[in-house]
């Protein structure tokens, strides 16, 4: 199964993350890489891995999900901010926080379904800035370090291709019958 947290219904160029839960082993290297790359800008974890275990061995179900800001196309946090401190960058579609405008009311956290914006120790909201110091063409810190390539970043069109390929491969591996596009 492929999990993609991308949504873009707007005209502007849109970058985002693709996350494959099948590949994630929960090593938390992405968390560390994010902290190391962003240094003192980051006073709280911008990316976090949530591990869920359910049931008992051998009937055990587990999943690791690495979550950060998804830079949503129609971002709820942008709509929720009373000071317009959160905005989408026109060139990349990345959601950024203007700390000077932020007053730390946490309405963006309330709005965000992923719990991405966090209150930093300086009283301002912080969140993934898509490694803003890296040029857009290269891998983000979390993506670069991921040993299983569970995280992929890029323009939404490119990520869409990966999603389609993953779904197709999954169906091939599973060798299930009668589930392809509802033909049977």
């Amino acid at each position, binding site marked *: 199964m492929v999990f993609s947290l991308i949504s873009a219904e707007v005209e502007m160029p849109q970058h985002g993350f693709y996350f494959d839960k099948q590949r994630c082993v929960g090593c938390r290297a992405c968390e560390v890489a994010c902290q190391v790359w962003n240094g003192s800008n980051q006073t709280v974890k911008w990316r976090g891995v949530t591990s869920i275990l359910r049931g008992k061995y051998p009937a055990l*179900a587990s999943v690791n999900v690495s979550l950060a800001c998804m830079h949503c196309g129609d971002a709820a946090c942008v709509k929720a901010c009373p000071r317009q401190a959160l905005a989408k960058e026109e060139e990349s579609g990345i959601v950024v926080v203007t700390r000077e405008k932020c007053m730390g009311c946490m309405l963006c956290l309330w709005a965000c379904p992923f719990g991405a914006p966090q209150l930093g120790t300086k009283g301002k909201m912080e969140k993934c800035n898509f490694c803003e110091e890296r040029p857009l063409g290269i891998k983000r810190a979390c993506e670069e370090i991921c040993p299983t390539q569970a995280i992929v970043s890029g323009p939404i069109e490119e990520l869409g291709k990966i999603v389609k390929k993953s779904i197709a491969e999954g169906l091939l591996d599973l060798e299930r019958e009668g589930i392809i596009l509802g033909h049977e």
Partner: protein
Amino acid sequence: MNTITYLRIIIAVAIVIFVAGIYKNLIKKISSILKIQNSLQDTKIRDTAPLFQTILREAIFQLRIKDRSPILWIGHLMIFGGFVTFFIIEFLLGITKNFYCLRPILKVGLDLSGGIMLVGLGIAFVHWIIYRREEIKLIDIKSVILLFVVVISGLMSSSCRLLLDFENSLPVGALVEYSATKISGFFSFPWEEIHKWLYTVHITAAAGFIAYLPFSKLIHVVAVPLGRVVTQDKGYVNRKRAKISESLL
């Protein structure tokens, strides 16, 4: 146009702008949050202990500011405390109009709260001057200046009024204003005219403050306690993330 008509018009305009601003910058924002599926479920306050802790820490003691700067924290507490006390006493003065014995006592509080606010604003100014490089974009200095004008013109115009109306029982309780009145009494200035101008400045600045509030960082007065009460503890983030993750199991 006389002063009272001007006062009524400008306050009415300020209130209209205030309401429009609150609608645009708060009510619309919150309704957009509540539209998102399951937000109401996330909003449910699960435990009252963190709620009271948040109210104490954030709304009353404002400890988050202490983490940033203890001096700024003291200034902020004084502005907040003075502001809240001032409005409570103004309200009490309004409802105890016929209880003359209470008015001088309340006037002490009113006078003190104005003084405390003034000291707090002074601290905010000094802090801004010392740390302006770091704080220039963080402190909404326009709001601080506006509030400073409101407070100082209010105190000065009150002093002038007391000078003109010395028979009133209120001067007895006025500490700052009474002293200012005593000193002013030595000079023969056209106090009535000065009072009129100071009062106009006070009302105009107060109306400007009310109108500017929803468009400035001062909206934090409502937005911060609201947002923090909802997202009261660190478990809130974990719960949201766990919910997403569980859906993938």
